[in-house]
C-alpha cells in the first residue's frame, strides 16, 4: 500500500502545510469578508425592503382609518347641524304661534268686553225705555203721573231683577 511508504510522508506533510495555510489565508482574508459581506448585504436589503413595505402598509391603513374617521365626523356634524336647525325652526314656529295666540287672545278678549258692554248698555237702555214707556202707559191709562224711580223699580221687578 503506497500510503504506508513512510518516505513519502515528509513531502506530503510539507505541501499539506503550505497549501492548507495558503487556503486559510485566502479564506480568512478574501472569501469570508466577500461572501459574508454579500450575504449580510442581501439580508439587510431584504429586511429593509420588508420594513419599507410594512411602513407603506401601515401608512395606507392609517390613511384609510383617518379618512373613515373624517367621514364619520362629517356625518355626525351634518346630523348635528340638521338637528339644531330643526330645533331652532321648531322653537321659532312655537314662539310665533305663541305670540299669535296671545295677540288673538287679546283681540278676542277686547271684542268680548266690547260685546258685553254693548249688551249691558243695550239692556240699560231697554230698561230705561221700558220705564219711560211704562210711566207713559200709566199716565195714559190712569192720568196720574208716577215718578221715574218708581217706574224703573217696577220694570226691574217685572224683569225679575
Amino acid at each position, binding site marked *: *500500500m*503506497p*500510503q*504506508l*511508504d513512510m*518516505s*513519502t*510522508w*515528509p*513531502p*506530503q*506533510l*510539507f*505541501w*499539506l502545510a*503550505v*497549501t*492548507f495555510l*495558503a*487556503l*486559510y489565508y*485566502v*479564506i*480568512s482574508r*478574501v*472569501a*469570508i469578508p*466577500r*461572501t*459574508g*459581506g*454579500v*450575504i449580510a*448585504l*442581501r439580508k439587510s*436589503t431584504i429586511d429593509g425592503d420588508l420594513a419599507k413595505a410594512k411602513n407603506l402598509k401601515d401608512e395606507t391603513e392609517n390613511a384609510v382609518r383617518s379618512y373613515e374617521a373624517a367621514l364619520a365626523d362629517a356625518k355626525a356634524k351634518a346630523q348635528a347641524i340638521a338637528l339644531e336647525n330643526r330645533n331652532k325652526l321648531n322653537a321659532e314656529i312655537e314662539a310665533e304661534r305663541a305670540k299669535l295666540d296671545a295677540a288673538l287672545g287679546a283681540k278676542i278678549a277686547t271684542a268680548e268686553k266690547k260685546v258685553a258692554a254693548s249688551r249691558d248698555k243695550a239692556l240699560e237702555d231697554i230698561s230705561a225705555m221700558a220705564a219711560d214707556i211704562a210711566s207713559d202707559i200709566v199716565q195714559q191709562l190712569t192720568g196720574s203721573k208716577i215718578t221715574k224711580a218708581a217706574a224703573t223699580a217696577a220694570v226691574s221687578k217685572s224683569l225679575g231683577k
Partner: protein
Amino acid sequence: MATPEHGEKIIDPIHQFVIERLVPIHVGGVDISFTNSALWAVIAVTCASLLFILAPRNLIPTRLQSVAESIYELVYDITHDVLHENARTYFPFVLTLFVFILFANVLGLIPYSFTVTSHIVITLALALVVFIGATVIGFIRNGFGYLKLFVPSGVPTLLLPLVVLIEIVSYFIRPMSLSIRLFANMMAGHMMLKVMAGFVVMLGVTAGWLPLVAMVGLMGLELLVAALQAYVFALLTCMYLSDAMHVDH
C-alpha cells in the same frame, strides 16, 4: 488480457495512490519534493480560492456565486449551531478545513487525477491538528477542569472508573476515527471505481457497458461521499471544539 503485465497495470487499483516525485527537492536532508499529491493539493487550493475570488457579489446570486455562498452558509450554520458564541473565532479554520477536504475529494474523482485525502498521513495530520488544537484550547479555557470531560455527571460511583476509562479511550480514539474515516472512504471509493473501470476494459464492447452503467452510478455515489466526508470532518471538528469550550455538557 494480452500480456499479463499490461493487464495487471490496468486493473491494479492501488497504483493510483503511488506518490511520484515530480520535482525532487531536499532541504537539510528533509525530502520536500513536489509530488503529484502536492500538485493536486495546489490545484484544489487554487480552484477553491478562484471560486471565492471570482464569484460575483450580486444581490441576486449567479450560479458560481450560489456555489460559494452555499459552501459558506453550510459551514457557517454548523459552526454556529455547535459553537454558538465562539463560532466567529473558529469559523475561518473550519471553513478552510471543509473547503480543502471538499476540493481534494471532488477533484480526486477526475480520472488520472490524484486524491490528496486518500493518504492516511494527510488525514491524520489534519485530524491531529484538530485534536491537539482542541485539547490545548480545552486546557487553556478550563485549566484542569477540562479533565471533567472524562467524568460524566449522573453516573453511579460503582461504574465511574469504567466510564472514565471508556471516556479517556474514546477521547484518544477521536483523531484515529476522524482520519481513518476520511482516508478509508476515499481509498475504498477510488479502488472500487478503478476495479469497475478495469472491468469495462476487460469485458470490451460486448459486455463492458454493464460495469460502465454501474460506474456512472458509483460516480454519483462517490461525489456524495466526497461532499459528505468533508461535511462530517467539519462537523466533528466543531463538536470537538465545542467540548473544549463547554466541559459541563
